[in-house]
C-alpha cells in the first residue's frame, strides 16, 4: 500500500517513536496493522461495542445546569470520560494503554519526569497545575528561535503525514451526513422563534422607544441609511451572537492568540474591555503553515527589508511603483506553482474582483460554484458576463449546465458564448470540501471551457509539496488556465496572486484594475512571501542555477515529470540581500510544516468523526467544520470553549459561522488547523469538543470511540481510510 510509505517513520506504529521526550503512543489494538485491508472498520466495531454500554447519557440541559451550579474546579464530564476509558482498558488485557493518553503523560512527565504514573492519582487540580503554562512552555526541548506560543514545538516524527490524494478515498462523501430530524425541527423552530420575537420587538420598540430606532427611520427628509428590513438579520439574530465575532486581539495570530476580555451591558450593542487579556489556543486563524510569527528566519528577513525598502508600496504598479522585489516575488510565485508567469496584487479580495472583469465581459459566461467566495461574485458582477451557478461540487449538475449553455448559446440571440469560464475554489473555506479537480480537467477537455481555480485556502495547505490542489491530485498545473490564491493564509503575509501562461498574464497586467489604479504590495509583505514560499520550496545551491534557467522557460510539465517540476527555487530568484537560515534554505523546515499540518488536519477530522460529531469536508482539509445546527448552541459553544470546563482549563478560541455565510440550518464551528499546533494541542481540542459537545448535545452522529481512545489511536486514525 502506498499509504505506509508516506509516513515518515519507515516502520509501522508498533515501534516506539524515536523522539526522546515525547510520550510513546501505543495503539489500543495491537492487531491493527497499517497494511491490513480495512483496519479501522474492524477496530471500530469492537470499539463501539465495548464503548456503548458505558456511554454517559446526559441531556444537554441537565448537564448545562449541572455545570452552572457545580463548584469551579471539579469536572464531571471529563472525569466520566476518563473513568470510562479506564474501565474500558481494565476490561482489556493491556492495562497500560489508558496511561498513554497524552494528557496524563504530559502531566506526569512534568510532575515527576517519568511516564509511569498512574492516572487515577491525578486529580483535576494536578492537571490544572500542569496545564498552567501549557500555551507558553514547550513540552519538548528543541533549539528553535520561534516562540512556542506562536509555533508549537513538536518533534515526534510519527506525528506527520503527507497530504496527497488517495484515489481509494472518495473526494466527496457519497452522501452528506444528516442530523436527526429532531435537530432539524428544533433548528427551524429556533429560527422561527427568533424571527417572530424579533419582529415583535421591532413592532413595539418603534412605538415605545423611537429613539433607539431613529437610525432606521426616515429623518428630516433623509431616508434611513439602513432600512429596518435589511438590517433585521443583523439586529435580531447576529447581535445575539455578537460576542463570538470580532473579538479584539493582540500579538501574533499563531498557535495561540491573546484576546482582550470584554463584557456587554446593553445586550451586545457595545462592548467594554475589562482590561484583562486571555491567551487561548488558536484554531481560528488561517495560519495553515504557521508562518504568522514575530520571530524566526522570515521575520528576520522582513526586518532587513524594512531597513532597506521601508514599508510602502505607495502608488499603483504601472506608475513608478513596481519594485525589483515585485518582479522577484512574481517569478518565485510562478515557479512555486509551476506556471509560466504570475502577478501579485495587494489584497486577496481585490485579486479576484479586479482580474475577473479583465478576463470576461459581455457575451461571456461564467459558471460558478454556488459556494464561491464573495470576492468572486463581486468580480463576476463587475465583469458584466452572464452567470450560472451549479450545485456545490456537483460535477453532474455542472455537466448538465454545460450541455445546456453550450447548446442554447446566449439568451435570446442563441449566439454561441464567446468564452465560458468555470470558477471554482480549491478548498472551500466554509465546507472543508475539495474541488473535484481530476473530473473538471476531464470535463474541460470535452467542453472547452476555461478553468479558474481560487486556491486561497489550498495553496500551501494541500499537496505533498504544498503547491495546492494540483499538487494534491497530481494534476499538471498548466492544465488549469488561471490559478489564483492569497498570501494571507498559508504564507502569513497579505495580498493575492494570479498565475497562468505568459500571454494571459500580460493581458491581465494590462487590463486588471489593480495594476493601473490600486496600490502595489508593500515591500515587507513581499519579503514575507518570498521567505515563506522559498522555505517551502527550498533553495537550490547556487551551482544548480544556470541549468535551471534554461529549462525554466521552456518546459511544460507533465505528471510524469512532476517531482522535478516542483523542484527547489533557484538561488537567483531570491533577492541577493536576503539571508535565510539553513533550515529554511534547504527546505527541511517547510517540509516539516507541510507534514505536520497534514497530520493535524487528518487527525482532528477523523477524531471528531469518531466522537460522533457531524463533520463536513475532506479529511485532508485543514479546515474542519463541525456542525452545530441549533443557533442557540453557537454562543454557548464559543463561550464554553473559551471558559473550558475540563481540568486543563486551557481556553480555545473558535469561529462559529451561521447564516448568511452558511445555509440557514447548518450553522457550524470551523476549526482552522495549523502546522504550528502540536499533537497535544489537537488532543486538547478533541477533549474540549468532547466535553463541550457532549454537554450541548452536539454529537448528532454515532460515537464509536471515546476521546481517550481516539487520542491514543491518533496515528491509526490518520493512516486508516474511512
Amino acid at each position, binding site marked *: 500500500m502506498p499509504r505506509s510509505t508516506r509516513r515518515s517513520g519507515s516502520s509501522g506504529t508498533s515501534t516506539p517513536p524515536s523522539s526522546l521526550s515525547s510520550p510513546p503512543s501505543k495503539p489500543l489494538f495491537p492487531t491493527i496493522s497499517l497494511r491490513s485491508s480495512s483496519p479501522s472498520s474492524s477496530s471500530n466495531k469492537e470499539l463501539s461495542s465495548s464503548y456503548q454500554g458505558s456511554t454517559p447519557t446526559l441531556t444537554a440541559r441537565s448537564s448545562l445546569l449541572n455545570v452552572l451550579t457545580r463548584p469551579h474546579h471539579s469536572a464531571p464530564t471529563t472525569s466520566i470520560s476518563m473513568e470510562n476509558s479506564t474501565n474500558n482498558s481494565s476490561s482489556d488485557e493491556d492495562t497500560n494503554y489508558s496511561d498513554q493518553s497524552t494528557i496524563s503523560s504530559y502531566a506526569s512527565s512534568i510532575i515527576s519526569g517519568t511516564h509511569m504514573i498512574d492516572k487515577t492519582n491525578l486529580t483535576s487540580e494536578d492537571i490544572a497545575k500542569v496545564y498552567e503554562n501549557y500555551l507558553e512552555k514547550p513540552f519538548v526541548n528543541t533549539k528553535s528561535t520561534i516562540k512556542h506560543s506562536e509555533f508549537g514545538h513538536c518533534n515526534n516524527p510519527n506525528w506527520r503525514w503527507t497530504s496527497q490524494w488517495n484515489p481509494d478515498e472518495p473526494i466527496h462523501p457519497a452522501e452528506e451526513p444528516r442530523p436527526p430530524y429532531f435537530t432539524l425541527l428544533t433548528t427551524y423552530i429556533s429560527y422561527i422563534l427568533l424571527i417572530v420575537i424579533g419582529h415583535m420587538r421591532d413592532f413595539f420598540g418603534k412605538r415605545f422607544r423611537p429613539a433607539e430606532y431613529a437610525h432606521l427611520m426616515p429623518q428630516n*427628509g433623509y*431616508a434611513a*441609511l*439602513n432600512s429596518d428590513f435589511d438590517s433585521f438579520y443583523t439586529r435580531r439574530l*447576529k447581535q445575539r451572537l455578537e460576542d463570538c465575532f470580532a473579538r479584539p*486581539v493582540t500579538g*501574533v*495570530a*499563531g498557535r495561540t492568540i491573546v484576546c482582550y476580555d470584554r463584557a456587554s451591558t446593553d445586550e451586545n450593542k457595545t462592548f467594554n474591555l475589562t482590561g484583562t487579556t486571555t491567551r487561548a489556543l488558536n484554531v*481560528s486563524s*488561517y495560519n495553515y503553515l504557521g508562518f*504568522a510569527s*514575530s520571530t524566526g528566519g*522570515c*521575520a528576520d528577513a522582513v*526586518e532587513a527589508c*524594512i531597513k532597506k525598502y*521601508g*514599508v*510602502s*508600496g*505607495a*502608488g499603483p504598479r504601472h*506608475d*513608478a511603483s*513596481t*519594485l*525589483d522585489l*515585485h518582479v522577484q516575488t512574481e517569478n518565485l510565485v510562478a515557479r512555486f506553482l509551476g506556471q509560466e508567469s504570475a502577478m501579485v496584487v*495587494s489584497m486577496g*479580495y*481585490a485579486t479576484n*474582483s479586479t482580474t475577473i*472583469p479583465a478576463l470576461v465581459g459581455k457575451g461571456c459566461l461564467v459558471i460558478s460554484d454556488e459556494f464561491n467566495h*464573495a470576492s468572486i461574485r463581486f468580480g463576476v458582477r463587475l465583469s458584466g458576463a*452572464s452567470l*450560472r451557478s451549479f450545485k456545490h461540487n456537483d460535477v453532474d449538475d455542472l455537466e448538465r449546465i454545460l450541455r445546456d449553455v453550450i*447548446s*442554447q448559446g446566449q*439568451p435570446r440571440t442563441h449566439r*454561441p458564448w*464567446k468564452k465560458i*469560464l468555470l470558477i471554482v475554489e480549491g478548498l472551500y473555506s466554509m465546507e472543508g470540501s475539495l474541488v473535484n479537480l481530476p473530473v473538471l480537467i476531464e470535463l474541460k477537455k470535452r467542453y472547452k471551457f476555461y478553468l479558474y481555480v481560487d486556491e486561497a485556502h489550498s495553496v500551501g495547505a494541500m499537496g505533498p509539496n504544498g503547491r495546492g490542489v494540483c499538487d494534491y491530485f497530481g494534476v499538471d498545473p498548466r492544465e488549469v488556465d488561471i490559478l489564483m490564491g*492569497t*498570501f*494571507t493564509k498559508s504564507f*502569513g*503575509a*497579505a495580498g493575492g496572486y494570479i498565475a497562468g501562461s505568459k*500571454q494571459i498574464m*500580460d*493581458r*491581465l497586467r494590462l487590463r486588471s*484594475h489593480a*495594476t*493601473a*489604479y*490600486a*496600490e502595489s504590495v508593500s515591500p*515587507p509583505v513581499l519579503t514575507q512571501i518570498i521567505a515563506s514560499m522559498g522555505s517551502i520550496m527550498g533553495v537550490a545551491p547556487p551551482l544548480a542555477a544556470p541549468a535551471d534557467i534554461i529549462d525554466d522557460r521552456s518546459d511544460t510539465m507533465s505528471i510524469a515529470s512532476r517531482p522535478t517540476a516542483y523542484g527547489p527555487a533557484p538561488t537567483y530568484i531570491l533577492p541577493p540581500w536576503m539571508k535565510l537560515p539553513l533550515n529554511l534554505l534547504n527546505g527541511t523546515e517547510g517540509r516539516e510544516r507541510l507534514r505536520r499540518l497534514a497530520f493535524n488536519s487528518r487527525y482532528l477530522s477523523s477524531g471528531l468523526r469518531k466522537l460522533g460529531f457531524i463533520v463536513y469536508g475532506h479529511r485532508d482539509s485543514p479546515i474542519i467544520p463541525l456542525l452545530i445546527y441549533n443557533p442557540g448552541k453557537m454562543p454557548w459553544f464559543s463561550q464554553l470553549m473559551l471558559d473550558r470546563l475540563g481540568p486543563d482549563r486551557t481556553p480555545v478560541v473558535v469561529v462559529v459561522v451561521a447564516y448568511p455565510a452558511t445555509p440557514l440550518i447548518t450553522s457550524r464551528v470551523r476549526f482552522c488547523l495549523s502546522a504550528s499546533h502540536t499533537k497535544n494541542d489537537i488532543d486538547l481540542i478533541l477533549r474540549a469538543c468532547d466535553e463541550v459537545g457532549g454537554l450541548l448535545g452536539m454529537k448528532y452522529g454515532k460515537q464509536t470511540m471515546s476521546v481517550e481512545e481516539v487520542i491514543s489511536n491518533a496515528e491509526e486514525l490518520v493512516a486508516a481510510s474511512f
Partner: protein
Amino acid sequence: MSGIHTSISTLAATAQPASTEIPAPLIPLLSSLTSLIYTIEHLFNKVPGSPIIVRYIKSSYQDDPWRSVLELFLLAFAIRTVLKGRTRGEGEGKSFIKLTEKEIDELVDDFNPLPLADDPTPADSFTLDTVPTIYGPNGIKVKTSANGKTLLNLATPNWCGFIENDKMKQVAIETLGQYGVGTCGPSGFYGTIDVHQKAEADIASFIGTEASIIYSQAFALVSSAIPAFAKRGDIIVADRGVNFGIHKGLQISRSNIKWYAHGDMKDLERVLQSVERDRKRKGGKLTKKFIVAEGIFENDGMLLDLPKVIELKKKYKYRLILDECQSFGMMGAHGRGITEHFGVPANEVDMILGSLANGLATGGGFCAGSQVVCQHQRINSSASVFSASLPAMLATCGSAAIDILKAQPNLMTSLQSNIALFRQQLSKLEGDSKDALISIPSDPNSGLIHIFLLNPPDSLEEEELILQEIVDECQQTSNLLITRARRLRSQEVFEPEPSLKICISGYMARKDVEAAGRGLKAAIVKVCGNIVNKVDADCWFASWVDY
C-alpha cells in the same frame, strides 16, 4: 358591514324558517354550523383591508363573473411563474429550444470559444514595456535599472516623504517583533488587532469624525463601501470626472445614477433639482440619495468646491460620499484633506474615503464617518467582511504618520511651496498665450498634477505616444522619472484624455523641484514644439497601426 356578513345573515335567516321541515336532531348541528360561519366571518372582517377585498370581489362578480374566473387564473399563473423563477437558469426561458442529446453533442463538438486572452497588440506591448521597474527602495531618488543613474521620482505619491521616513521604519520593525506580518484572518474572526483599533481611533480623531474603519486596500475600499449603502432604487448624483474605483462601486450598487458635469456646481444643482422634480411628480417612497465626488480628482487633480457641495447637499437632503484618496495627507494645514483646506467640519461629510497608501505611505484605506456608518460597513461591506485585515505594521505606521503630521505642520508648508515652485516653472507653457502647449486643470494647491496637451493629435494612441516621448526625454536629459497617467482603455466609463501625471513631494529639495520643472518644460517644448519629432512619432504610430 361587509357583503359577506349580509349574505350569510340572510342565509341564516332563511335557514330558520326551514327548520320546521328539518328533523329535530339536525337543528343543533345547523345552529352550531351557523355560529362557526359567524365566527369565521367575524375573524375575516377583523383582518385589515378585508372589506375592500370583499367589496371588490362582490362588485366584480356582479359586473362580470368571467372576470373573476380570469383573475383567478392569472393569480395561479403568477404564483406558478414566481415559483418557477426560483429554479434558476436563464436558458429555460421562452427561447429555450429543446434538443436531442445527439444534437447537443454536436453543438458541444462545434463549440469554439475565443481564446481566454487575445494576442497583445503592439499598443499593449508598448504600454507594458514602458512600465519602469525600480531597483532598490522607492522614494524621492530612485534607480530604474540595477546600475543605472539616479532619477528624481515625480511619479510616486509621497507628499511628505513618508516613504523614506526612518521613524516609520523603526515603528514597523517594532510592530514586526510583536505582531509578525500577516493577520491571517478577516476582522470578524480574530483579525481585529488592537493596533487596528488604535489606527481607526487615530484617523477619526485626526480628521474629526466620530469613527473610522480601515480596509486592506484603498481601491477595494472605494468600490465596496459605496454599494454597502447605495442599493437598487437609490439615487446617486456623481461627478463625471470620478475615478475608476468609484465607477466600479457605482456599477455594483445598481442605483439610479445621474451625472453632473465635472466640477460644475451649477450643473450639480440642476441635476439635484431635476431629481427633486421627478420625485415630486412620481411621488413614491423616500429613497436614499447620495452625492459622490472626489476631493482632489485622481484623473486631473482638480479640487472639489466642498463648501458649495455641502450647501447643496443640505438643501436637497443628500448624503455626501467624498473620496479623499488623493487629498488626504496632501491638502490642508496638517494634511487632513480638503475639509481642513476649506475649514469645513469633517462631520458634515457623511463618508470620507481615504488612502493610507497614497497619503501616509503605508497601505490600505479607511472610511471615516459617524459610528453608524462605520459599524454598518463592518457587517455589510463585502471587502471588509470577506478579506483579511490590514497587516499590523501598516496600521501602526499609519498611526505614526498621523502623529508626525499633527506635530509638524511645516511638512505641509514645504509641500505647498514645492508645488508652487514647480507650477511656476511650467506657467509659461500654460494659458492663452501664443506659445502655450499644455493645460493643467489641477488645483494650484494640489500635489497631484496632470498635464494635458493643448493641441493633441487626432487619436488617443498618438497622444499617448507623444506623452511617452516626453517621459523618455525627461528621463534621458534631466534625470526625472515621470509617468503617463495609466488608463484602462475600453474599460473606462468616460475615457479620460491622456495626460502626464506628476506627484510633487514636500521632501524634495527646492533646487531639485526647480530643476525638475525646468527639465519637464524643456522636454515638453522639445517634443511638442518640434515638428520633425512629431512626424517621426506619426510614422512610428502608423507603422504599428498597420501591423
